[in-house]
């Protein structure tokens, strides 16, 4: 299955971890997926199914045991700022202020820009996530939601070709999560970003994604199902639930997850 204008090709990726006791664990087996430029794809599945493993492979933080990943026809061999990650636990540097955290990324990625240009990029991105008032604060002085906004601003400031999000809103309360989802959706739409997000929240996946990729249980997790989300854009997180297709799509995802859970329990009880 090749999408025209494909930006990313995940070609038969298998990931094996060698454990300390000499045995090995097959996390992913034979993952094949094409992602088009400007597409928003969610990876969903039960914990331990290798969602984050696949995201790390896309980021280049680890290398596939078999198969490979192509971005614009070039193989991913190491991490780089064209595939910026928004990490699950924000990964802000605690000794830098909000502004300095973003500035570090900007000056590393744009060494050729003038200080004035860099400062403008930093300030623009702080504004985009509504953090101007907190720009001089240290991460320890911010709430979880604010930290996540800094992490997103830092990622967007360096204009990655691919934005990778690892359960970005998992640790936030429902209200904050909803607001941030809306903001992220707008930013992605405005800057025509390509994004891959790991989540275990069905509603989050449906709201943000063009396609939801369901991974089967590990070990040797594969793609169990791909669900296109044809809901019209721009989407609104409350209005989207009134769309006639919404509950049918949601049911499809829930069914998949429930089937996987049953398989998991069967596997556990037969062991």
């Amino acid at each position, binding site marked *: 299955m090749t999408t025209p204008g494909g930006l990313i090709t995940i070609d038969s990726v298998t990931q094996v971890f060698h454990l300390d006791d000499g045995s090995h664990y097959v996390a992913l087996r034979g993952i094949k997926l094409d992602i088009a430029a400007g597409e928003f794809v969610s990876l969903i599945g039960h914990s331990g199914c290798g969602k984050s493993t696949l995201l790390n492979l896309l980021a280049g*933080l680890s290398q596939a045991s078999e198969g490979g990943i192509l971005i614009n026809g070039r193989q991913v061999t190491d*991490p780089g700022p064209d595939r910026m990650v928004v990490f699950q636990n924000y990964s802000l540097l*605690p000794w*830098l202020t909000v502004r300095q955290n973003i500035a570090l*990324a900007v000056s*590393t990625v744009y060494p050729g820009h003038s200080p004035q240009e860099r400062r403008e990029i930093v300030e623009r991105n702080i504004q985009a996530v509504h953090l101007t008032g907190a720009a001089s604060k*240290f991460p320890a002085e911010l709430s979880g939601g604010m930290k996540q906004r800094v992490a997103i601003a830092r990622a967007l400031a360096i204009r990655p070709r691919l934005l990778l999000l690892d359960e970005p809103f998992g640790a936030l309360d429902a209200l904050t999560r909803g607001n941030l989802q809306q903001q992220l959706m707008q930013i992605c739409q405005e800057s025509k970003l390509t994004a891959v997000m790991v989540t275990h929240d069905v509603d989050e996946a449906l709201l943000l994604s063009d396609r939801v990729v369901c991974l089967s249980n590990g070990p040797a997790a594969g793609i169990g199902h791909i669900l296109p989300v044809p809901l019209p854009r721009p989407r609104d997180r409350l209005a989207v639930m009134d769309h006639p297709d919404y509950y049918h799509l949601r049911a499809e995802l829930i069914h998949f997850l429930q089937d996987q859970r049953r398989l998991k329990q069967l596997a556990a009880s037969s062991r």
Partner: protein
Amino acid sequence: MTPTPSSSRRPRRRRLLPALPQVLPYLFCIGAFLIAWQLLSAALGVARLPGPINVLIDTWNPYISQPFFDDGGTSKGLGWQILISLQRVALGYGLAAVVGIAIGGLLGLNRFIGKGFDPVVQVLRTVPPLAWFPISLMVFQDANTSAIFVIFITAIWPIIINTAVGIQEIPQDYTNVARVLRLSKRAYIRNIVVPATVPYVFTGLRIAVGLAWLAIVAAEMLKADGGIGYFIWDAYNAGGDSSSSQIILAIVYVGVVGLLLDRLVAWVGRKVSKGAG
């Protein structure tokens, strides 16, 4: 709760003695300690163990009232003696800090060297300070240099170990950020390794300053001209009437200076690692 006459009287008393509740535990416990000491002194006899009052009377003139008298030679006030010791500590400890952070940094950044040298560090760090003194005297042929070397070699191990551990314990979150942004080695060290390691380094520096002060007093007792350790040993050898009082006074000074050194390093550490952690 209804206001009662007693509750309206209490704030006034608190205003008269605002610090009393804070200092009461210290007053009570230290007082009890001094009384127990005085009683023990009375039981043993003042000649064997002077009580706190005897110490004050015996050493008031010149040791307490004139900390900076100088009668030439090694007959100096306790202020001078402590400054002589502090000067040695400053040299040895300063050297240990510079060399220790450099070696610790190397051991932390390079996995191969860090693993290879670990047994050496683990063995040498347990050597008691004074065990270094004879070999140091043989090498340097000079008591003052040897004393400084003993401080250096005593203080360096916790600095090396804590620096190396601090670097090895840098959370993977931070190194992942560095990898994704493709920070250069220099930018990585400046923006991530150094700030992430500073709290560990200061833990090491704080342990080291305590050990250094411990070592200087012992080294000066063995062989030195001047210094607070020399003063203690000299007073013991002199065996005069007020000798034991002089020794006790010197011990109190050693303790207070050691505490101040510890607090000073902790304070600098807090200032330097502001924002982190």
